[in-house]
């Protein structure tokens, strides 16, 4: 029987010991004799969250297909174990071998949201790896970051040796080969990093210097060494059908957030909503072949024994073969008593038909994301969803027996007025009224239930709103109050429930999202004061964050409420995500002019992603 890094006594004392023992079905164990590179793949949050992430499953599978590599997993120890590990100086370990992370060649960390930054430091600290990259010794693992937040890596640049910009399927093999070569030749860490920096998509922060203007904005951002690229183009897989996909995903023992087979049907999004970062980062849209997806679904269900399958992508309704795929899955899943978990689909005849077949109509709800309360503001954000479409969709659904509707909005969008905000209540009311008009009294089973939720808008890099000012906490809360009042003033207010997000954490996320290297010392300080798991509401300590910004002399409004000039050099400008700055400026101007931009299938907008030579940009052409 395999050894464990933690004693029985510890494991029996902590919550959910299954988080730390490995041994899951389809986890990969290799013989150290047979491999040359040890890669620890980390999601810096608790096991149940990390295990639900598709990206890690894809990369885990890819790395372990390489005969010379053993990729293992590591997640953030929960606070109970965290305290014990600190007290007893137990080094953080990988799940499969239970060996200390410090013995690995690489520690890869996926960075999915800004609020995990202190957990990254927790991982490094518990692994007994120096937090600051330049302080690491020759035998420390190479710490490499990836995922959406690496598109503005600057607030955490000090903590990483390398950021891998873009999709992981493409350049890791080359990086590993360079690493092996360097190891064989006895090259130093610095020499390896230099060679790594020459590989496509690799950003090595220590080889770049930043100088600032007096106003705190960037004067220059440039390589401090010969042969280091000035800009870094994201890595992208153009053939998403013929690439890595995990046919044997790991099956956890404990219930995780995403406890099902996940089928990624496409990457990217044609829509171009101006607030959405993913919609820009993952351009162009690339669809997976439907026949391949059918085959994957059967094989993955067989290999995991999961009782549910879900489809994953941005705007899944835009997948051109959706009907065929869903019809296939419905037949297969019926046979095998498998549930289909649908992504949120555009409400139309097809989706209502599918939903009525795979969900309990009485229990399930319709989801609309108008994002803004008025058509004017929806035009600003380029959300091509009209009131008419929403009402018609809702009416069709009410006829089909649905009586629950979820509505998602954002507050604090650029150019927003009080009228736009009040539109949220009005729209919710119109939907409720449509229910009472559509469904005769005798067929109603109680009231229609409308839940309107608002989140606070956070401007993100590489979006047309990257120049925009963000609201203050007070403005956010005022707007939530206006929303609430506007709902309360509606005729059908008793049918409408309103939820809003915390404002503190949104403000902080806004700082980190558009932060620069100056923010790193605040993150480090906050961590040293004991903050981890900031993404977990109950553990987020806003006062410590605020006081740490003050102590480090870092201005919060500089990052949040300041509208940027069009010629400002952004901390992330050295990254080329495919979409050009010219396009984003054009879109920013269109937004202010309330001018709508058609989606990629309707008309090419020349965003820049066409240079990747594939995907939706070349659809229907050969």
């Amino acid at each position: 029987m395999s050894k464990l890094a933690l004693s029985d006594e510890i494991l029996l004392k902590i919550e959910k010991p299954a988080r730390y023992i490995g041994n899951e079905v389809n986890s990969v164990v290799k013989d150290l004799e047979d491999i040359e590179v040890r890669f620890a793949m980390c999601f810096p949050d608790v096991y149940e969250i990390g295990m639900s992430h598709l990206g890690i499953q894809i990369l885990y599978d890819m790395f372990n297909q390489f005969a010379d590599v053993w990729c293992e997993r590591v997640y953030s120890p929960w606070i109970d174990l965290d305290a014990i590990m600190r007290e007893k100086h137990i080094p953080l370990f990988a799940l499969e071998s239970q060996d200390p992370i410090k013995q690995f060649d690489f520690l890869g960390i996926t960075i999915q949201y800004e609020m995990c930054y202190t957990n990254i430091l927790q991982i490094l600290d518990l692994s007994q790896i120096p937090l600051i990259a330049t302080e690491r010794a020759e035998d420390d693992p190479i710490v490499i970051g990836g995922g959406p937040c690496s598109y503005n890596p600057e607030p955490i640049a000090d903590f990483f040796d390398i950021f891998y910009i873009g999709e992981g399927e493409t350049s890791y093999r080359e990086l590993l080969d360079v690493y092996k070569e360097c190891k064989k030749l006895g090259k130093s860490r610095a020499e390896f990093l230099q060679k790594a920096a020459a590989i496509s998509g690799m950003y090595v922060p220590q080889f770049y210097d930043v100088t600032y203007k007096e106003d705190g904005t960037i004067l220059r951002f440039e390589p401090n060494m010969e042969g280091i690229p000035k800009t870094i183009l994201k890595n992208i897989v153009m053939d998403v059908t013929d690439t890595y996909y995990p046919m044997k995903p790991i099956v956890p023992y404990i219930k995780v957030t995403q406890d099902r087979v996940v089928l990624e049907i496409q990457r990217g999004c044609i829509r171009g909503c101006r607030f959405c970062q993913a919609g820009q980062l993952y351009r162009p849209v690339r669809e997976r072949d439907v026949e391949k997806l059918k085959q994957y679904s059967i094989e993955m269900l067989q290999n995991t024994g999961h009782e549910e399958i879900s489809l994953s992508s941005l705007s899944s309704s835009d997948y051109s073969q959706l009907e065929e795929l869903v019809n296939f899955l419905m037949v297969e899943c019926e046979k095998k008593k498998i549930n289909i978990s649908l992504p949120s689909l555009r409400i139309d005849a097809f989706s209502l038909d599918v939903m009525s077949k795979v969900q309990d109509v009485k229990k399930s709800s319709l989801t609309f994301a108008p994002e803004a309360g008025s058509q004017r503001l929806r035009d600003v954000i380029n959300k091509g969803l009209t009131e008419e479409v929403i009402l018609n969709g809702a009416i069709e659904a009410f006829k089909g027996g649905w009586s629950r509707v979820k509505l998602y909005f954002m507050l604090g969008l650029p150019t927003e007025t009080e009228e736009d905000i009040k539109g949220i209540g009005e729209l919710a009311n119109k939907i409720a009224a449509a229910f009472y008009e559509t469904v005769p009294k005798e067929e109603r089973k109680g009231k229609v239930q409308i839940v309107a939720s608002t989140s606070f808008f956070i401007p993100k890099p590489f979006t047309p709103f990257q120049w925009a000012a963000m609201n203050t906490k007070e403005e956010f809360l005022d707007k939530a109050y206006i929303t609430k009042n506007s709902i309360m003033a509606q005729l059908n207010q008793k049918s409408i429930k309103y939820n809003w997000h915390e404002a503190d954490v949104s403000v902080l996320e806004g700082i980190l999202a558009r932060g620069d290297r100056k923010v790193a010392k605040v993150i480090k300080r906050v961590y040293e004061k004991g903050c981890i798991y900031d993404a977990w509401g109950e553990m987020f300590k806003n006062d410590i964050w605020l006081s740490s910004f003050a102590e480090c002399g870092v201005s919060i409004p500089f990052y949040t409420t300041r509208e940027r000039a069009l010629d400002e050099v952004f901390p992330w400008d050295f990254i080329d995500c495919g979409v050009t700055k010219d396009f984003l400026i054009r879109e920013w101007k269109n937004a202010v002019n309330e001018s709508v931009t058609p989606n990629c299938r309707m008309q090419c907008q020349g965003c820049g992603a066409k240079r990747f030579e594939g995907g939706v940009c070349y659809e229907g052409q050969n």
Partner: protein
Amino acid sequence: MKVRIKFSKHGVMKFIGHLDIMRYFQKAIRRSDIDIAYSTGYSPHQIMSFAMPLGVGLESDGEYFDVEMNSMVSCEDIQERLEAQMVPGMHILHVRVLPDNVGNAMASVAAARYRIQFRDNCEPCFDWKSQLASFYQKESILVIKQTKKSEKELDLKPGIYEMYLDNESIVLMVDASSAGNIKPGLVMDAFYKENGQEPPEFAFEITRMETYANAGTTEEPYFVPLDEIEG
């Protein structure tokens, strides 16, 4: 038809709780492609019944669950298919078809036998080997049982069927029926107390050796392993 499956659980798997073991088997059964029956209704689930939950931290050589099969080739086929799906630490020990008139696994449980070992440096500082017999020969073994609402005095003795020294460990067979289940830790606590001591936390390594049904009567029980029960 109903099939009873006996399995063992060792090593790191002792940290997986009962509900997760059930989920583990549901998924293993799907992977194994055996033709298990599903309940009808909106969300069909496998027809499956576990004999007795095993506490987190305990290992076992005698765990059981029953499944309802639509069709089957043979018990050996089910055993092979399921065994092929096990992770290290889990084994399918035996599969048999149940006679029609045998009650489900949970209702059948009458007793369980445990092996109790002391962890390193956790051996009691009294002469436990020689004290064991006299403890077991006592007329009654009274303990205070804490419930959520109150404390009540309980005599363990009638529910202890065997207790003896075996090499360096204690073998203990106790009542495991739903009405009178005795946890081995409770008996050990009483044994320590009898000798003026209190066991340290995490002192024992406990393995359930077997789970039994009563093939005799209440007055004259005759315990047989759950998979040897006859209709």
